[in-house]
């Protein structure tokens, strides 16, 4: 299995050979930032294209197919259009908070994005409390959305933000508890270690029943957390025009759009890291030949492939189910998912303590 840390160590050594210590660190930091930005932008563009195409196929349309082959240049055209649109100054907004909100949303998604293990040795932030840190930073996004809604001084925005706040904090509980179920199973919170532990089989197979329940809960809660799919009532366009970003225009709006797609990627990235083995290939204990063949597929393809599968499921939700009402949404969380989650946590502890897993 190719280890990306070979490349990073080579670059490190190369820089150290002709630069002083301090300059090396600065150059490396800049390189990390650039790689992160390029990855962030590319994934966002790919996701926008994929969403439009998939949505089109679900509705028996063709989707974008004029700009470039198969419409592949469409997201670039969209991006430039958004950059060249006027940023309208609204009279009665709280200007500071209004401008601060996109920062919060983007910071949350970039920090969470930086925690994901893309391939063996290819991960920016790797704390020993990694997965906990990821939950913590991704919850900053809620503050951004609430600020956007409050600062806009618009009734649609306010209702959208309040709904969004109630929805996101509620479903964050389910995300936290289902991740905790897997932390009980793994016995560590460091993301690299969690991935390494799945060498003999992914957690969703090794943890059998409680892991599968946790995976389903995580998918539902993750879809709600990104304000998508049947849970998109913060921006329900038929009742609230655009919800919390009604007053945002041009690139200001573009950031919310960007963050929504990247949050979807982060949710699917965490799902594939915790449940589907991250960059770890599909291994069956005892089948040495099979495992070696699987190791030939690069780890980054495994990770992105698993993310793609999970993202396709999330998009499938969006284009299949009708939107929920706020009372149905909160009832689903507090009366079904939270009790089920607590029960599932205890079930997982029983499985771990009495060694009933594979």
């Amino acid at each position, binding site marked *: 299995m190719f280890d990306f840390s070979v490349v990073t160590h080579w670059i490190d050594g190369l820089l150290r050979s002709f630069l002083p210590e301090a300059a090396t660190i600065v150059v490396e*930091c800049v390189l*990390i*930032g650039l790689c992160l*930005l390029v990855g962030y932008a590319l994934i966002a563009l790919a996701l926008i294209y994929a969403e439009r195409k998939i949505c089109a196929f679900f509705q028996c349309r063709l989707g974008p197919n004029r700009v470039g082959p198969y419409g592949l240049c469409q997201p670039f055209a969209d991006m430039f259009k*958004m*950059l*060249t*649109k*006027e*940023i*309208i100054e*609204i009279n*009665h907004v709280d200007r500071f908070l209004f401008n601060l909100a996109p*920062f919060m949303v*983007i*910071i949350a998604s*970039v*920090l969470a994005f*930086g925690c994901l293990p893309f391939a063996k040795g290819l991960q*920016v*932030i*790797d704390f020993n409390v990694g997965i*906990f840190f990821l939950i913590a930073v991704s919850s900053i996004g809620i503050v951004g959305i609430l600020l956007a809604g*409050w600062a*806009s*001084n*618009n*009734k649609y*925005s*306010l209702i959208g933000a*309040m709904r969004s*706040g109630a929805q996101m904090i*509620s479903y*964050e*509980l389910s995300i*936290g508890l289902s991740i*905790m179920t897997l*932390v*009980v199973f793994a*016995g*560590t*919170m460091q993301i690299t270690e969690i991935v390494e532990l799945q060498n003999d089989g992914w957690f969703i197979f090794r943890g059998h029943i409680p892991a599968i329940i946790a995976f389903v809960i995580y998918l539902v809660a993750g879809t709600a957390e990104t304000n998508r799919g049947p849970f998109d009532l913060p921006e329900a366009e038929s009742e609230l*025009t655009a919800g919390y970003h009604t*007053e945002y225009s*041009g*690139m200001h709006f*573009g*950031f919310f759009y960007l963050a929504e797609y990247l949050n979807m990627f982060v949710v699917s990235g965490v799902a594939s890291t915790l449940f589907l083995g991250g960059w770890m290939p599909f291994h069956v204990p005892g089948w040495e030949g099979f495992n070696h063949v699987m190791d030939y597929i690069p780890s980054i393809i495994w990770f992105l492939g698993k993310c793609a599968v999970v993202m396709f499921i999330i998009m499938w939700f969006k284009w299949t189910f009708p939107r929920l009402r*706020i009372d149905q949404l*909160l*009832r689903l969380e507090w*009366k079904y998912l939270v*009790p089920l989650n*607590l029960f599932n*946590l*205890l079930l997982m*502890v*029983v499985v*771990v*303590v009495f060694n009933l897993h594979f």
Partner: protein
Amino acid sequence: MNLTLFVVVLLTAILLVVAAMTIARAISPRTFNKQKGEAYECGVPTRGKSWMQFKVGYYLFAILFLMFDVEAVYLFPWAVTVQDAGINGLLGVLFFIVILVLGLAYAWKKGALEWK
């Protein structure tokens, strides 16, 4: 090392927003119109302020969330060590979770989970 990387990623995020906003402000057109600055309300002028008292229902869920979120903070360290703690870890936390479930049941019975 990790803390440095955290700061780098944070600065990257801030830089992304600042750079994109600067480019957008530089190349986007500007026109002035008195109507344009009004709050959007599907064509009619907006009435009253939007910074007002809001439905208390959301607040109840926020309080409930606080209770369970603090619980999650307590449970995460336990989750890491439960494999070493074994059956004692299970029994100890069972007590904790039963009290929490009682709290949830109380809120449920009082009607805090109903949307009115």
